[in-house]
């Protein structure tokens, strides 16, 4: 196990180093953002699922490498090719590590959306499609990958995949990909009718999925949908065309990936306040890192569509939080696992993240100056 952990950490740093060497000045921040997102998956992997087997470790490194590679590409075609590879490997990893199920129902397998994703990527390369259709395909691909876990939501034992490293990797690849695409390759047609209405359409979709989650009786299945929605939320914040909101989306992406891994999978223990706080913080309740990101990403806008979108997102989060109204601690306590340094680190980060709100006044200006002017992340 120790050898695999060592290999994993070394490989992450090697791949990052390689990407840094290859990256131009404008792509360097993307390598850093990707590194920050994926290193969180390794650090907060409390159950050591990635180094559990060589296959998992190798697949993780491959997915990480492909994702970074996609952010170094100079053309959209190459970007989508790398992303498609990462998506395919992520679905393999998902199927390999998820608990057994009946296998019935083609669309319950995550391989089905993976194939659809490939088709949408291929369709973008067809020469007779207009810019509108090409962007439509790109949008479909991003949404398909964001809701990858929605396909498997109804299968047996799927609740155990909530808060898993597969979920975090899906969120990492999808989030970094959609952020990079929005900042670098987003076509002009995305800012015109009818695509300009996705500023309201995406939150509406999020609200619909949140409403769907109310029909699931298990918290963990709801949380899977919450994570899917968070990816769409990040994408929405990135395409609104406002620099501060874009940087909030970058921060929300990192917060989302980390938080999925920070959530302890054991049952809530009434005697351990820290554990319960960590669990609640994964839903973005006030006083958590994710709540700060929600506030930053939903600040009032000049654009009417973005304002309406913000309102819909806020309502969406309230729909998810509505489950808290019926919260009850388990009566039977299972065998509690030890509170580890990883949990303490997670707790520190989520509470420190809540403290970021203190910089609300300065956040847009400072971050825009640091990332926008110095590095030019946005086109």
């Amino acid at each position: 196990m120790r050898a695999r952990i060592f290999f994993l950490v070394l490989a992450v740093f090697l791949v990052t180093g390689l990407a840094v060497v290859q990256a131009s000045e404008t792509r360097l921040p993307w390598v850093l953002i990707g590194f920050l997102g994926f290193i969180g998956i390794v650090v907060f992997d409390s159950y050591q699922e990635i180094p559990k087997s060589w296959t998992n470790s190798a697949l993780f490194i491959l997915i990480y490498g492909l994702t970074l590679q996609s952010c170094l590409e100079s053309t959209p075609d190459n970007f989508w090719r790398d992303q498609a590879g990462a998506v395919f490997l992520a679905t393999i990893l998902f199927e390999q590590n998820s608990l057994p199920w009946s296998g019935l129902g083609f669309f319950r397998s995550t391989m089905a959306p993976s194939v659809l994703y490939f088709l949408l990527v291929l369709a973008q390369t067809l020469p007779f499609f207009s810019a509108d259709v090409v962007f439509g395909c790109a949008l479909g691909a991003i949404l398909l990958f964001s809701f990858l876990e929605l396909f498997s939501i109804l299968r047996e034992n799927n609740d155990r995949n909530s808060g898993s490293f597969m979920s975090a990797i899906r969120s990492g690849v999808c989030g970094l990909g959609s952020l990079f695409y929005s900042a670098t390759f987003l076509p002009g047609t995305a800012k015109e009718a009818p695509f300009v209405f996705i500023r309201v359409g995406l939150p509406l979709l999020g609200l619909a999925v949140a409403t769907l989650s109310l029909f699931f009786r298990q918290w963990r299945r709801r949380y899977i949908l919450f994570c899917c929605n968070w990816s769409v939320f990040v994408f929405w914040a990135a395409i609104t065309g406002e620099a501060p909101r874009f940087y909030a989306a970058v921060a929300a992406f990192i917060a989302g990936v980390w938080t999925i891994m920070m959530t302890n999978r054991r049952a809530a223990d009434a005697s351990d306040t820290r554990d319960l706080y960590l669990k609640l913080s994964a839903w973005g309740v006030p006083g958590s890192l994710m709540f700060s990101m929600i506030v930053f990403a939903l600040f009032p806008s000049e654009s009417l569509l973005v304002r309406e979108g913000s309102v819909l997102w806020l309502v969406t989060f309230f729909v998810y939080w509505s489950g808290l109204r019926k919260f009850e601690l388990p009566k039977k306590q299972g065998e509690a696992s030890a509170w580890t340094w990883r949990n303490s680190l997670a707790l520190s980060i989520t509470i420190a993240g809540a403290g970021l709100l203190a910089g609300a006044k300065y956040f847009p200006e400072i971050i825009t100056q640091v990332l926008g002017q110095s590095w030019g992340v946005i086109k």
Partner: protein
Amino acid sequence: MHYQESLLWIPAAAFLSVFFVNLIGQRYRRGLSSLAVLFVSQALLTKNLGYIIVLLALADTFLGVELFLSSKVDEKNRAVQSLYQSALSLLPTALGLMLRLDGNSLISCVAVTIVLRLYSWPVSHWLVEISGDNKMFPTYIGIVSSFALWHIQEFLQPELWALVWLSLAFLFGLGSKYTEMYATFSLGLFALSPVLGIASVCLWPLLARPTYTIYLVAAFSAVSGGLLAQSLSGYLAPEATYAFVSLVGAALARVFVATAIVKARWYMVALDLFFAALWIGFLFYTNTLPIPIPTPAGVTFVDSFVFVFLLGKLLYKKKPGFFKPFPGFPPHLFSKEIIGSDLLLERKGASVEMGQSPFRVLIFEALESEGYIAILFGLLGAVLLWGAK
């Protein structure tokens, strides 16, 4: 700014004095409650509605965590459930802010938030539900946070808001507490005249316990209601105004009649009176209070209140049903079973084994101790208070 800068400090001072008296009474001596109090005080001093919402949300969270730490399992469940209710109460104002509403539209959103935070009838609000034995102080947070949201609004039609609060007082007077009625009239009065509104805030220390000081509160409520009633002439026909204010006066008196007076330690009551007098004195010293001239509508309100109050005191023992608050909706009306995480299989967590050097043991023991969360919350509070300046 529609009211003077010096007036900003009086509500915060009045609120902190109530907290101080409660500390003496050994009701709250825990860190997170103190942090929640500081956040609410900060909200009273802040002029940005966005910051006020965030400060109140965090104050509610700290109070919830505090109650979670200090209570039984059932109370713990309710403490978590309350987080949602508290956040939901702030939603209308947040929506108004995000949609960039202004004028009466934004004030309407704020008013809805206040209704959700202030009244414990017909649906128990979160503070009442989780407050256990210490009901009064958490209820206080509801009153103070409502004022924090209201005090920065710019009222273009103050008489309209006087009418709104009088109507709400009539409606919620069917089941709410006298403190909530008093807070309602304070909000209406503040819309009409900030100085008079702050004058009513000066009496906040008297709301801390329903002792004999309740008569002072009742008298000031009647005067406040009378002042609100006087402003309705532009909105209602004279006959309708008299009928309406009579009904509201009677509804208010009914609430005070039904409130049982409890005994409290003399020094606590003395401290409450001292602080109320101190803040009123300070207000008189720093500001000129407008002296209203009574009009028929105002006199009708006060007459109606006094008549029903005296009648109620005579009849209460024989016919308590006339004065008792109406029952509200039962809690968890729409509850549905949810499968929690206890029914799922568990796997043990794993951690990288560290060396056993004394320094590492010391560090990791500190990291894994329960007290760690208190230290982190303390740091968070300090940082956020600094940021909300």
